[in-house]
């Protein structure tokens, strides 16, 4: 299994798009940092953008870090979706699937190695953006402010890592849905387009379910996968009362949904006839 994952990992990084997309996300973080600095001069304390560690400066640096990371992370998630659709459908589109599936590994193993590669790309990209965001924050606002507690008893460094974790989990759920789409599709372009459009549609769908839940008081609807995906345990503006979710419910729920979607993808991938040239 490790061999399979290593192969997928090598193939992923041998593609230029993997690097380019990550670079774009980093540049967007940089632009956010620059924009925050340029538009809101009150962010800065002291000269040359270096924070002096004064209390207002500290809070500004923490805010800046959070928004710089968020902007980059939003793109990383989309790019991880794109790369996931690519690593499955490209094998079919370019017909390399033939040489992959005629090796002594089951299709289950082949698809699982792709899932691992997809998740690993997501994690590595988000961690890269975390580091990049920290560097930009340091460069524009100084590192001094990042040691202060910002929420849940965590300083900016830890809070940022927790943010990476939340992003990883909800995106993993999304990626498992991309697996279902890509496992049955032949066209790379369609798979990518659908995967990204799905994000939009899910947002609308999730909103509708939300309305249904509050008007009819069907609070079990809170367990729908889209609500779980939208939930952020770090955020304070969440549903309350019977509609509220807690961290453990969210975590276990997402893992179950990821498993279900992945099993569907696996079933489709296994049944699929590899034909046409």
């Amino acid at each position, binding site marked *: 299994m490790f061999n399979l994952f290593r192969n997928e990992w090598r193939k992923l990084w041998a593609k230029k798009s993997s690097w380019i997309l990550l670079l774009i996300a980093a540049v967007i973080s940089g632009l956010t940092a620059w924009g925050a600095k340029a538009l809101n001069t009150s962010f800065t304390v002291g000269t040359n953008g270096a924070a002096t560690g004064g209390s207002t400066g500290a809070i500004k640096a923490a805010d800046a870090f959070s928004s710089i990371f968020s902007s980059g992370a939003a793109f990383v998630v989309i790019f991880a979706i794109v790369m996931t659709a690519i690593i499955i459908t490209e094998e079919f589109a370019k*017909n390399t699937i033939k040489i992959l599936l005629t090796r002594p590994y089951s299709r289950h193993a082949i698809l699982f190695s792709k899932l691992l590669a997809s998740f690993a790309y997501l994690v590595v990209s988000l961690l890269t953006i975390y580091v990049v965001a920290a560097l930009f924050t340091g460069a524009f606002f100084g590192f001094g402010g990042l040691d202060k507690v910002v929420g849940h008893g965590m300083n900016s460094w830890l809070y940022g890592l927790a943010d990476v974790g939340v992003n990883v989990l909800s995106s993993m759920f999304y990626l498992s849905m991309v697996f279902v789409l890509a496992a049955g599709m032949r066209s790379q372009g369609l798979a990518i387009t659908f995967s990204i459009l799905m994000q939009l549609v899910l947002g609308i769908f999730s909103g509708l379910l939300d309305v249904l839940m509050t008007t009819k008081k069907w609070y079990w609807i809170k367990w729908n996968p889209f609500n779980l995906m939208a939930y952020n345990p770090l955020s304070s503006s969440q549903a309350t009362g019977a509609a509220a979710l807690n961290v453990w419910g969210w975590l276990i729920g997402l893992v179950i949904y990821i498993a279900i979607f992945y099993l569907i993808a696996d079933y489709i991938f296994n049944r699929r006839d590899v034909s046409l040239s």
Partner: protein
Amino acid sequence: MADTTDYAASVEHLSKKMHYVQILKDVTFSVGKGRILGLLGPNGAGKTTTLRIMVHLMRPTSGTVTIMGEDVEKNFTKAIAHVGAMIEAPEFYNYLTGFKNLRLLADMSRKQISNEDINAVLNRVGLANHGNAKVKTYSLGMRQRLGVAQAILHKPEVLLLDEPINGLDPAGAHDFRTLMSDLRDQGTSIVISSHILSDIQSLADDLVVLQHGQVTYQGTMDELISHGTNHLTLITAKPDDTVVILQKLQMRYTRKADTFDIEVPAGDPHAFQKQLAEELFNAGIPVTTMQLKQASLEESFLALTKEEGEKANV
């Protein structure tokens, strides 16, 4: 039928329906150990589909495939470990070099394959100087060679090659034939599909002819030759009397001046030749020339496939 373990690979009663179209119908054949089997048939006959099912890229609607005693569907990983395959035009990761493509595939093998082994294989297929070029720069012939390389990389007992000579230049085709007969001599069992008989006639020991998804001929290469219509060229001193004899014998023939071209009926052509000579002798017709022309393999094949094709169409 003999036990499937006697063969390197067996295909039994394979049928495949796709979109309500019967692509394969009750296809059965076996690949003898250390032999080369030619899978011959016109375009669209179902050769590729058969090979895809043999490596489980596709599922048959019914029927089984056994490779080195393992059922491909039930015991896929065990069965496929014995196989090297090239199905249709070989495809590789274009953004990687030839060597790196082979490295990836080598890492998916059950056997330990070193970088030296990979270089040896590249050398064997004539790509020694191109291993470090990206596959996207390869010509069709070079891809074909790399396709053969990935199939033989792990020294499989069974090789399944789909139209491997397509896209090869004459030198490449020659190299390929040499490589295949070497591998056979080392005990590898090989299936080579083709729509051109002459591409495989010097190579194949056995032949399976596929038409419209059905096996229409199966036998050794030697047996095929006896299948064609032989012709007898006859020149006599009394051509008009000869016509009478030929008509009496209900022969099919054409005449050009003194020369007759007679279709030899099925059966032993030499016995026929003797019988005709006796008839002519008894009628007092002096024979100037009587020459048996055995059908070439290509002619035999065409005659056979035409005949069977007509049957299959009914």
